[in-house]
């Protein structure tokens, strides 16, 4: 029997070590499950766009490409890719699409193995991936890609400080609050105005929760740190005096942690009251299409405005009409804190073997009218003037609201220089910040302590 025990122990150790291996492979299996990657086959939708033919001849080229977004974006982007393949039969695509978090997980592993997709999408966190971006300048100066339709200001949104063109913006964007006016009226809450304050926002949300038993405001998810907290910093003081991180991303853009305190207190109070989703409820919202505003469980939600037409259409099908309000301010006559920025951009990767073909595709994607008629400004308002004119001429209701809103916000006074980028390490600051709010809501720490901790976490990035 002793022998048996010994051998069973040995077996246990052996199986344990193989289990460890299994654990790892199960993870990768999960990864591929989540990927939903698809191989493409060309040949659809013939068009008359022959003049847009790619110049790299008849050489067979396979481009790998990936992006993040909602189902709506996936469908539209795939249709655009198929259009490009039909015009350029020698170009083939292998595309992958993900949700935001999964996209960056995958990207980081590809960065580590030097296998980043030929064409890939990046947002305000691009400074982390600078080593992997192949600048477009040589193709612009040699005339391979023509960006004359894109204004200087819009090109600048995706340049470094030294003017290196990292990518081409997928659209111009800003933040807003989508809301259901019918719910506001039913609860007797004051409708948002262009100069409403965070106090108005909280008051309306609390009232709606009292009267209707739903969340006053849906979750800002992880963007609460950007669209909420860091906007809140920029809204204080003189125009452009403060920002969360400084303009060069070398340190903090404000000195006093107390500036964060009222916002954190407000969030914690709202969670306690039930007018803002707690962590459990927030985790149920996985993308904008199942946001509580869309499911009818909240009266407003935070959006990057390019998302607005999607949820507008979704609610229209339920017989509800949404509207778009500006982000609340600290003071009625204070700074808006809003700025117009690039939603995301497409970049060519350093690892690509077909950089030229990739650059040509990106230029086509951003400037071709037929392509953008398919895309319908889902990634933000097109940076190319001709495309924008063509699209806004026959925009849907939701899109029209988005265009008007962006025009309105671009007329707000904004600081000369802004920083919408986040440094490496920002993700951890955000996660900790969201946990501190939970701790304030449960009474574990005070809002003042949470503000100081958040400040210390952010400051620690630069040490």
């Amino acid at each position, binding site marked *: *029997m*002793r022998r*048996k*025990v010994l051998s*069973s*122990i040995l*077996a*246990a150790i052996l*199986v*344990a*070590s193989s*289990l*460890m*291996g299994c*654990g790892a492979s*199960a*993870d990768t299996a*999960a990864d591929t*499950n*989540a990927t939903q990657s698809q191989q493409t086959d060309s040949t659809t939708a013939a068009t008359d766009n022959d003049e847009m033919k790619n110049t790299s001849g008849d050489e067979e080229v396979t481009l790998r490409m990936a992006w993040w977004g909602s189902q709506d974006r996936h469908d539209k982007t795939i249709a655009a890719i198929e259009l490009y393949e039909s015009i350029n039969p020698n170009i083939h695509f292998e595309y992958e699409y993900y949700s935001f978090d999964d996209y*960056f*997980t995958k990207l*980081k*592993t590809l*960065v*580590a193995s030097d296998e980043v997709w030929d064409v890939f999408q990046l947002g305000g966190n691009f400074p*982390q*991936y600078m*080593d992997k971006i192949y600048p477009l300048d040589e193709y612009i100066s040699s005339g391979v890609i023509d960006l004359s339709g894109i204004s200087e200001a819009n090109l600048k949104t995706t340049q470094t400080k030294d003017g290196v063109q990292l990518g081409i913006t997928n659209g111009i964007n800003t933040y807003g609050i989508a809301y259901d006016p019918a719910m506001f009226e039913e609860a007797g809450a004051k409708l948002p105005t262009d100069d409403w304050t965070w106090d108005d926002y909280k008051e309306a949300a609390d009232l709606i929760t009292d009267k209707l038993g739903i969340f006053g405001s849906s979750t800002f998810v992880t963007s609460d740190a950007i669209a909420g907290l860091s906007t809140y910093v920029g809204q204080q003081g003189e125009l452009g005096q403060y920002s969360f991180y400084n303009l060069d991303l070398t340190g903090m853009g404000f000195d006093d942690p107390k500036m964060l305190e009222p916002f954190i207190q407000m969030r914690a109070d709202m969670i306690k009251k039930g007018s803002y989703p*707690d*962590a*459990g*409820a*927030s*985790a*149920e919202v996985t993308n904008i299409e199942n946001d509580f505003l869309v499911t009818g469980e909240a009266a407003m939600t935070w959006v990057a405005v390019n998302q607005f037409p999607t949820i507008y259409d979704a609610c229209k099908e339920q017989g509800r009409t949404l509207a778009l309000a500006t982000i609340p301010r600290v003071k009625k006559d204070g700074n808006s804190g809003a700025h117009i920025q690039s939603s995301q951009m497409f970049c060519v990767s350093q690892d690509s073997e077909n950089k030229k073909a990739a650059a040509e595709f990106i230029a086509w994607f951003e400037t071709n009218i037929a392509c953008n008629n398919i895309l319908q400004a889902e990634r933000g308002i097109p940076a190319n003037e001709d495309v924008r004119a063509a699209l806004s001429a026959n925009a849907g209701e939701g899109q029209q609201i988005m265009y008007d809103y962006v025009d309105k916000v671009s007329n707000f006074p904004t600081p000369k220089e802004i920083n919408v980028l986040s440094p*490496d*390490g920002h*993700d*951890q600051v955000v*996660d*900790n910040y*969201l*946990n501190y709010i*939970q*701790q304030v809501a*449960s009474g*574990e720490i005070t809002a003042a302590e949470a503000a100081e901790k958040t400040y210390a976490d952010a400051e620690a990035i630069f040490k």
Partner: protein
Amino acid sequence: MNNKSNSSKEKLRTGFNSDTVVGHVFAAPFIFGFVCFSLIPICMSLYYSFTDYSLGNKQAVFVGLKNFATLFKDEVFAKSIMITLKYVLMSVPMKLAFALLVAFVLTRKSKMVTLYRSLYYVPSLVGGSVAVALVWKQLFARKGLFNTLFTSIGLGRVNWFGDEKLAIYPLMLMAVWQFGSSMIIFAAGLKEIPTTYYEAAEIDGANGFQRFFKITMPCLSPIILYNLVMQTISAFMTFTQAFVITAGGPNNGTMLYALNVYNQAFKYNKMGYACAMSWVMLVVMSLITLAIFKSSKFWVFSESES
């Protein structure tokens, strides 16, 4: 010339026929896999744990013991250790008890036993998958099945994943639900116990409880040890549930250790730090496993001694 090649052929033949060579040839695929996919990565991770390696910029600067020193100041690390210990201490005994119970029930001589055994094993086949975790998330959601049941019988709703103290329990339940592999091993162990013991006990007038605790448990104790070690190790490595269902929240209430390592490595780009965490985990797991083995001589029954 001809002679020479003949003799070398001969050598080759005898070489291949010797037992050691053949053994190595057959073991080669495993050795190759072990070295490339386990040994080298393990050594690399030990090296990286002393550097500030990050997936983003791919530079590894040697920082000595800094990663390990930082660990002890890290609030999330401390919390994740406590949460993981709680998870292991509660889910493993529950799972083993449940597995033993089902295995015991299924030792009856009946035609349906094989069918039932297969059915009960199914959750273990699909258990670790993302799909099941998503189903679990729905079951315990604010308007999920369990809350609907609770409200329909007049009880209040339970905010499973919104409450820091409650959120870990659905994850434990999911682990318990995957009792199949332990059950199969228990069932095999139960079959090994000679029926003569039970017959003798019955003649002596022992009741069911006495038979279970005086005969079944001692005879089964080596198997229990095996299952205990296996399940403890796998419980320490639990990842999918926490990642998919709660993402570690609320307020890190379900931040299991493996998830924390993953976050540090792939979300926050601190690969070096994550490697250091993994090595701390290895030490903790080894100590606990060692403790279980050391304690086994007090409770594992071995026939040769008695």
